[in-house]
């Protein structure tokens, strides 16, 4: 029982990452009709916003410490962050410690700008091109983006820890009447889950309750008609692209403490997030979220030893297996619309 609760927690957490990425992907697809293979790269850039802010805050000047030596036997250069000098050691250290949450503020304008540039500069010209062309050009873009990140930050993962207060874990087991240590869960992962729920809720509320959102939803349903109404839908779509990029970006920022960001993390998520979107059904926002959580939870269950004992290696293929079963039994995924991307 405790093992199952634990895996549900894990699944919700994995699921919230999948759902957030798939949400942005499906927004872009639903509004613009563009298959964006660079979406994973946006997630990755988000994570590197956290890295960058962390590095910026930790920018240091060197002080020579004659009592110690470095690897070549010269006096050791001790790095002292500028923020220590500016704000005092305590405040400075707190700033660095909180760099990941702070990076959310930093990342939103950056990601919106990246989204705008991408849409205006490139994607716009591909609305009328076949989906295969869109896939290729955005795939090319994804490679270029990740290689740029690589040439700045290298190929190795870069540790980007969460604030001190969120490190460590919480013992749910005791609360629920199990033995201590039966169900422990890291604080930051709980934060991540809550944050995802918040973002997903905010996106849905935005689309539901604002005029802007209503026009966009109408545009998702029938682009031509909305265009005929004399509404400048293109401009709104650009904004949607920026929004989707921002969603992917903040998802990346918050993910950075969970797994140290590296330049190919976008590609690692890309295929999975596509599977999630398609399982959810092309063009359906709730479908993407639902599929994200469902696949996350099933993946967590499949990695349980009890399950692996019955079917060895099931955790390697579970996502794909579920995707195949769902697509074969439900022609348009969980909640897909008819006629979208079926040609």
């Amino acid at each position, binding site marked *: 029982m405790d093992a199952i609760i634990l895996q549900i927690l894990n699944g919700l957490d994995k699921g919230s990452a999948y759902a957030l990425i798939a949400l942005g992907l499906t927004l872009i697809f639903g509004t613009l009709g563009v*298959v964006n293979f660079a979406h994973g790269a946006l997630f990755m850039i988000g994570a590197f916003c956290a890295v960058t802010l962390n590095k910026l805050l930790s920018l240091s000047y060197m002080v020579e410490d004659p009592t110690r030596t470095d690897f070549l036997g010269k006096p050791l250069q001790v790095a002292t962050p500028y923020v220590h000098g500016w704000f005092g050691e305590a405040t400075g250290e707190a700033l660095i410690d909180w760099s990941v949450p702070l990076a959310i503020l930093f990342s939103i304008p950056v990601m919106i700008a990246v989204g705008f540039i991408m849409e205006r500069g*490139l994607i716009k*010209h591909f609305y009328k*091109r076949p*989906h*295969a*062309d869109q*896939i*290729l*050009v955005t*795939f*090319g*873009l*994804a*490679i*270029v983006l*990740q*290689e*740029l990140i690589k*040439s700045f930050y290298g190929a190795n993962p870069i540790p980007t820890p969460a604030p001190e207060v969120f490190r460590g874990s919480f013992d749910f087991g005791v609360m629920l009447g199990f033995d201590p240590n039966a169900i422990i869960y890291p604080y930051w992962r709980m934060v991540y889950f809550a944050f995802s729920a918040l973002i997903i809720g905010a996106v849905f509320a935005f689309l539901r309750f604002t005029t802007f959102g209503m026009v966009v939803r109408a545009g998702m349903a029938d682009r031509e008609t909305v265009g005929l109404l004399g509404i400048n839908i293109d401009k709104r779509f650009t904004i949607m692209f920026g929004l989707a990029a921002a969603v992917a970006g903040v998802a990346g920022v918050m993910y950075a403490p969970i797994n140290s960001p590296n330049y190919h993390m976008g*590609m690692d998520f890309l*295929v999975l997030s*596509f*599977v999630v979107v*398609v399982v959810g059904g*092309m063009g359906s926002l709730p479908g993407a979220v639902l599929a994200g959580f469902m696949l996350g939870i099933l993946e967590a269950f499949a990695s349980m030893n009890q399950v692996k004992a019955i079917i*060895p*290696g099931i955790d*390697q*293929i579970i*996502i*794909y*297996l579920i*995707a*195949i079963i769902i*697509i*074969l039994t439900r*022609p*348009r*995924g969980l909640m897909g619309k008819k006629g979208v*991307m*079926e*040609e």
Partner: protein
Amino acid sequence: MLGLNKKDTLLFWIVAALALLAPFILNPFPEGSSLAQMFNAGYPDLMQRFVIFGILVIGFNILFGLTGYLSFGHAAFLGIGSYSAVWMFKLVGMNVIPAILLAMIVSGVFALLIGYISLRRSGIYFSILTLAIAQMCYNLAYSVLGNPSSNFNLTNGETGLQLSLDDARILGESVTAEGALPVTNFFGLAMRSSYQMDVGGWLFTFNAGYYLSAIIMLVSFYVSIRIFRSPFGLMLRAVKSNQQRMNYTGLNTRPYILAAFVISGIYAGLAGGLLSSMDPLAGAERMHWTASGEIVIMAILGGVGTLIGPVLGAGFNEYFKNILSKINDNVLHDWLGFLPDGFENLLVGFLHYFVGKGWHLTLGIMFMLVIIFLPGGLVQGGQRIARLFRRKKNSDETQQTPAE
């Protein structure tokens, strides 16, 4: 000729000439020059790759180009073909023909199975089904089916399936007299044997494996032309154009698409079998989704649905992949040595980001440029150039007319 019309015959002979004279064409620079080190591609391994990937993409184009069904898991058949061929070498004998045949049969059977399942859906749902199945194959091959310590080691996991000194071959020896592994051969002609020719400063290598692959590629290309021009090809194009009309014209679309899927699967298996014949090691990465993506990229780069596009796309991709990754700062300095020192260093420092470890970046930029400016791929680029010449000629004529 050969049942082709004039235009197709011409195309076929152009491709044949390119393939057969490749050792000359790909080695334009004399030996030892720094340009040669950078740009010459006339060595057996790369030439083999050109034609083998050509076969792969020609087959993919029969599915994607004609029917419009975008399979995102085609690399699975390449991998299946490769593994089949290596098993043939391990268990039966080192002749490449049975290995290639087995590769084609096994991948054909898999294609039938996978196609039957995937073709229940169309559009992106089809793409994701093929992707999911191929990724399953990859993951299983990489670990579950490849554990050397288990009794069921089908793929030898990460290292890849390879020959070993204790393979019990039914036809032929386990180890040669010199204690080495026997080599793959075509009725005695070793695939890795080469003839070399010196002409002035140039050195040209004629490799047996390359020529076998090239001939098979030409046969594949010929078959693909015939399919394009056949009633069957017409039906496939009709599928892409309007499935509704197909159905209301009394035509069952499913078997047509399935047939195209199986044919392209067999082509991929053939390519896989050839890869293993040239170098008897089959790695699981061949089935990874990025490998499938690369097939799509090659097809689109060349020009989807055109006859020669796949060959161009495969050549372009393989050439830059292999050449760019081998350039290092040393080579750059060699190459740019004629420039003033400061300027040379500056330029090397800049180019440094685009070659060697940065070759992905260059390739990504090239994909984007081709796809942005040449929606019809390299074939369209060729057509544009041809038109440019024609227009120039035309305008020359019109300019001359008034003068007369």
